[in-house]
């Protein structure tokens, strides 16, 4: 048995994503994968899939699918999107089902920028270098969704409908933890203080590669000739005119702009869920404190995921 869907509408940046393809930065390939990896794991586990399985990552552009054959259970998590299945309004974080002749629509809601739609059973999509994650700039991997395209599930299953709790750590994060550097030495004490004590704002110039911020100018000093060097998801690179950009899932793997600071990995997901106009502040932690913070946060996420898997499905009242 299979299930098939036709894409009735897909906004920009709606792609197939999974846990990504780590380990290939040395060949110019970023890991890519879901912008909000906790939402990815939650949607997949709720749908009975492995946590890093391929999903459809829906941007603020939204997605409408027509189920044209079969039936399938699914889960949505990430952001506060408006979800409708077969004419029924669902919660933003919920499991549900969809059958031939019905429509599944995911549109931007009150908050958040990225929603993971996980179908129960394998989503068929092209693999590139061992993963179905789409590398946005090239389109390689599972690919961008486009109207008219048909998607297929190889082994769809039903999923008992239930609401999924949205934990506080899955909300957009506006206080961002960083470790300063590795090129903070190219910034004056004043610029470093501005970075940590002045507010920034998320701009419209953002995609899966990075997010440009507006805020105090952070003019680098004498850094215009630094050799191109590795950058990563979470690098805060500052161009010659003093504008900061945070690199995200589809980042370039090297860059010649100085990096004033680097986000904790977990904060890149929270940052990705902000929207243009949202205020941001950065707080510096030491490398030792950053490791401790990462461990505390990973434990909290681990407890949530374990509870999600242990809890029997709770049918929703009609």
């Amino acid at each position, binding site marked *: 048995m299979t299930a098939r869907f036709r894409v009735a509408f897909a906004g920009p940046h709606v792609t197939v994503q999974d846990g990504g393809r780590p380990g290939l930065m040395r060949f*110019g390939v970023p890991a890519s994968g879901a912008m909000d990896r906790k939402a990815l794991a939650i949607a997949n586990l709720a749908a009975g899939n492995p946590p890093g399985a391929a999903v459809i990552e829906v941007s603020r552009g939204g997605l409408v699918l027509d189920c044209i054959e079969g039936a399938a259970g699914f889960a949505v998590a990430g952001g506060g999107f408006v979800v409708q299945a077969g004419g029924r309004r669902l919660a933003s974080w919920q499991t549900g089902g969809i059958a031939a002749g019905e429509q599944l629509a995911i549109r931007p809601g009150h908050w958040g920028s990225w929603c993971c739609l996980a179908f129960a059973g394998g989503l068929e999509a092209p693999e590139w270098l061992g993963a179905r994650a789409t590398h946005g700039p090239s389109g390689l991997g599972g690919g961008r969704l486009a109207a008219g395209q048909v998607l297929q599930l190889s082994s769809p299953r039903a999923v008992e409908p239930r609401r999924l709790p949205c934990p506080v750590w899955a909300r957009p994060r506006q206080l961002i933890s960083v470790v300063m550097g590795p090129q903070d030495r190219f910034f004056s004490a004043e610029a470093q203080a501005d970075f940590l004590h002045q507010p920034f704002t998320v701009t419209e110039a953002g995609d899966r590669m990075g997010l440009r911020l507006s805020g105090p100018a952070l003019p680098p000093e004498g850094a215009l000739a630094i050799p191109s060097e590795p950058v990563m998801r979470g690098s805060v690179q500052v161009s010659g005119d003093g504008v900061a950009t945070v690199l995200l899932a589809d980042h370039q793997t090297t860059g010649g702009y100085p990096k004033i600071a680097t986000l904790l990995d977990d904060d890149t997901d929270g940052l990705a869920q902000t929207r243009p106009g949202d205020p941001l502040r950065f707080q510096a932690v030491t490398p030792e404190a950053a490791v401790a913070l990462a461990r505390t946060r990973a434990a909290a996420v681990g407890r949530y995921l374990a509870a999600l898997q242990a809890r029997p499905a709770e049918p929703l009242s009609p």
Partner: protein
Amino acid sequence: MWPRFRPVAERGLLIEFADQIGDAAHDAVLRLDRALADAPFPGFAEAVPAMVNLLVTFDPLVTDHRAAEAHLRGLLGRGTAGAAGALREVLVCYDDDLAPDLPEVAARTGLTAEAVIAAHLAGDFRVFMYGFAPGYAYLAGLPPELRLDRKPAPRRGVAAGSVIIAGGQCLVTTLTMPTGWWIIGRSPTAILTGDAARPFLFDVGDRVRFRRITRAEYGAAP
């Protein structure tokens, strides 16, 4: 005091061997990269070699900066200095329509187009690093007489396989992308090989020679 170890967030170290590009620094990067591949530490995630530094990432749930730095310091000086990488051959056709910037490169360098081609073919290139986009390998070793700053404005939609030069470097593009580098030829040699066992033609540190092919050979390449 080199090398310098700089923490990168909660999950990495940037090990810097110099602040200016040079063969000695790059050799040191590759030496540590190879030594680490032979003797990884618990929690090691990924190493990314670049011009003068090596990024090493790790799982902060397993290890931390101090333990990673101690391990890496123990590897310094190990491995073979200047170990030669494999020699890779890249085919290139310099015909007019595949080399739109060749006339201007000739004009700016004061050479004939054939002399530009001869100089490029004489280049003994080395894969310095990958960056920018998947499979974009920066090849150092462009002969001095061909060194030009980038173009004032990038050209859009430059075809995959374009052989482009700027500064002291050469690169064979793998995607259709804008570039401000000078386009002097086109190659049918796939850097993204499509071979799952060896998906990228070069390893960092490999040597590269270009071999000229005719338009007919370019058209006949798979």
